C-alpha cells in the first residue's frame, strides 16, 4: 500500500507565509486530485482528498477553509496532544495531508516534523530569516535523526518582489551559502495572496489567468514532485 504523503509547513519565526502557502497548496492540490468541476465543498467526507491540519492556536487556516469551503479540502484543528492521532486519521482518509504550524518552536512542530515526509520552511528574503530558517532546518534534521526517518526539508522564499530579480538572486545566495536547500519556486508578493486567508478565496479560483494563479500552479508542481505524487 502506498503511504499518504505528509507535508508540514514550519518556521520558528511567525508571519512568513506558512498559512498562505498551505491554503494555496491545499486548494490547488485538491483541484488536481479530485478532477471535479464543481468548486465548492459538498461536505461529503468521501470527497476530501486534501486534509489540512491546523496546529496553530490562532486557527487562521481552519477559518479560511471554513469561509471558502474549497472543493475537496477538509480542515481540522489540532493541539500538540491531538496532532499525531489527527494525522493518522487524516492519512487514512485523504490523498495528501498538510500541516500548518504556529510560528514558533513548540511541541506540535516537533511532532509534525517527526511524522512528515517533507517539511517546507518559508522564509522572507532577509538575513534575519536566514538565521531562523537555519534553526528550523536544524530541528528537522534532529527530528529525522532521532526518529530514524529520512525527512526532507526545503526552504521556500516568500513575499519576494515581482520585479526586482537581482534582489531575489542576492538573497537566494545568502540561503545557499548557509547550506539551506531552496525550492526553485518562490511565493511572490501579491495583493491576491495578501487577502486570501481572510476571504477564503484562492487566486486559482479568483483569477485563474493571473500571475498569482500561475505562481500557485508552479509551486504545486514542485511540491507534488517533491512528495513523489503524480502531477
Amino acid at each position, binding site marked *: 500500500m502506498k*503511504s499518504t*504523503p505528509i507535508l508540514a509547513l514550519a518556521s520558528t519565526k511567525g508571519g512568513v507565509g506558512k498559512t498562505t502557502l498551505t491554503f494555496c497548496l491545499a486548494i490547488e492540490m485538491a483541484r488536481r486530485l479530485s478532477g471535479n468541476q464543481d468548486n465548492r465543498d459538498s461536505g461529503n467526507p468521501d470527497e476530501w482528498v486534501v486534509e489540512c491540519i491546523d496546529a496553530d492556536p490562532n486557527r487562521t487556516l481552519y477559518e479560511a477553509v471554513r469561509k471558502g469551503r474549497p472543493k475537496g479540502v477538509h480542515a481540522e484543528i489540532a493541539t500538540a496532544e491531538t496532532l*499525531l*492521532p489527527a494525522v*493518522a486519521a487524516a492519512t487514512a482518509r485523504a490523498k495528501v495531508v498538510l500541516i500548518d504550524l504556529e510560528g514558533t*518552536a*513548540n*511541541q506540535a512542530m*516537533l*511532532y509534525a516534523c*517527526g*511524522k512528515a*515526509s517533507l517539511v517546507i520552511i518559508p522564509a522572507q528574503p532577509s538575513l534575519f530569516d536566514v538565521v531562523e530558517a537555519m534553526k528550523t532546518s536544524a*530541528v528537522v534534521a*534532529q*527530528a529525522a535523526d*532521532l*526518529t*530514524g*526517518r*529520512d*525527512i526532507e526539508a526545503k526552504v521556500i522564499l516568500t513575499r519576494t518582489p515581482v520585479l526586482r530579480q537581482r534582489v531575489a538572486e542576492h538573497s537566494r545566495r545568502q540561503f545557499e551559502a548557509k547550506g539551506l536547500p531552496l525550492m526553485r519556486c518562490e511565493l511572490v508578493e501579491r495583493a491576491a495572496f495578501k487577502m486570501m486567508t481572510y476571504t477564503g478565496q484562492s487566486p486559482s479560483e479568483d483569477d485563474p489567468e493571473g500571475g498569482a494563479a500561475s505562481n500557485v500552479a508552479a509551486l504545486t508542481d514542485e511540491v507534488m*514532485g*517533491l*512528495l*513523489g505524487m503524480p502531477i
Partner: protein
Amino acid sequence: MGKRPMPALPDIADEEIKSRLEPLAERVLPKRQAAPPPRAKVVNAEFLMPETVKTELKVRAAQRGISASKLLLEILREAGLPVTDADLIDHRKLPRKS
C-alpha cells in the same frame, strides 16, 4: 538535477515518535520555568547556645551580608538536615538605598 524518488519512510507508532523526540524537546523548546518548591513554614526556634557561638554566628553572617538565620541554615544543611534551596532564600529586609 534529477528527481530522486521519494524514499519510503518507516512508519513508526505515535508513542514511539513521541518518546524518540523527547530529547529534542528538551534541547529546542523554551524551558518552562519550574515553580520553585514551596518554602517550609518558618517558626521561631529557641535553642540555648553559648553566647560566644551566637556572637560569632552574627559576625560571620554580617561579614557575608546575610542573616544569621540563613548562615545557621547553611551550616545545618551541611550537616545533613533537610534544608531546601527555597528555605535558604534570605527574606530579611534589605537596607533601603539612600
